[in-house]
């Protein structure tokens, strides 16, 4: 199914991209603006499709993990680079800390990046002032990755729901935030697949902390 859903998007995203770059001729400012909006929406649709495909595979038990040895610090640097602009736009501080004891990891790089990007994205999305930070510490043979924010927080009664697919907390405020409510359920399933877990601590109006614990995959 993934092929069928993504092929038409290739031409939508590709041609809007070509037009926006002016490769098919110059555009006036209004045309640029409208095409830019079309491209953003197409990109958003792609993100939704990717999430729905992931959750479908997870639920069907068809999900596979591909492990490789990789440089964990470098991967966090890549994440920081790609998410910094988003935080800057909202005037939030972004902090990244990786324990110097962490070097290589033997795991599924893409999936670990997906978990961290989802959590940090949430932190940015649900925080209006202050910070979002990622702290990674080595504990025995596990890496603990903590994503902390100074955002709107989650009420105790809502916490049990946030990991369920398509669940978003209806706070009136969160309705302002776009998304499908699939991010956390994917993160939880991925963490489990990778032999770890994910936990949350949160205080309403103070902030949230998501803690992911995953094995480094390296025995010593």
């Amino acid at each position, binding site marked *: 199914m*993934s092929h069928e859903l993504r092929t038409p*998007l*290739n*031409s939508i995203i*590709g041609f809007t991209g070509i037009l926006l770059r002016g490769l098919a001729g110059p555009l006036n400012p209004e045309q640029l603006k409208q095409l830019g909006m079309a491209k953003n929406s197409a990109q958003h649709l*792609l993100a939704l499709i990717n999430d729905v495909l992931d959750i479908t*595979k997870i639920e069907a038990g068809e999900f596979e993990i*591909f492990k490789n040895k990789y440089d964990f610090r470098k991967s966090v640097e890549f994440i920081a680079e790609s998410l910094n602009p988003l935080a800057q736009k909202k005037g939030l501080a972004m902090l990244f800390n990786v324990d110097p004891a962490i070097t290589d990891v033997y795991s599924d790089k893409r999936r670990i990046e997906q978990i961290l990007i989802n959590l940090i994205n949430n932190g940015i999305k649900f925080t209006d002032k202050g910070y979002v930070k990622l702290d990674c510490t080595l504990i025995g043979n596990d890496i603990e990755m903590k994503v902390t924010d100074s955002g709107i927080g989650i009420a105790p009664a809502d916490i049990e729901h946030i990991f369920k697919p398509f669940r978003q907390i209806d706070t009136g405020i969160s309705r302002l935030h776009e998304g499908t409510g699939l991010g956390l359920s994917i993160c939880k399933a991925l963490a489990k697949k990778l032999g770890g877990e994910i936990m949350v601590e949160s205080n309403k109006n103070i902030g949230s902390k998501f803690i992911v614990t995953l094995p480094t995959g390296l025995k010593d």
Partner: protein
Amino acid sequence: MHYKILIIEDNEQNLYLAKFLLESYGHVVLTALTGIEGIKLAESSQPDFILLDIQLPEVNGYEILEKCKKNKQLFNTPIIVVTSYAMAGDRERCMSAGANGYIEKPINPDTFMQQIEEFLLN
């Protein structure tokens, strides 16, 4: 640097897209709608590299990749897979079958050529 590039892709819109994009950077682009046709064209025209789709009619991209790697005239020609087939493990499968790179569709016109050049350098 201007390349001679062969694109093997069965979706005509996607083919037009990649061709237009690469030509607008001054590259010479040859196209084939099936893998077998692509191999013939590659043998006769010796492109600098091949962009290969995986989901192709009749003979799929994996098989084409293997055929090229066994072909005396083509085993040295870099092949970059460009596919929306993105299932877990596709990248690994392509790379171990001898691909020089793997780009997931939808392609990003802003970075497509850069991605290709990085793969060619490695």
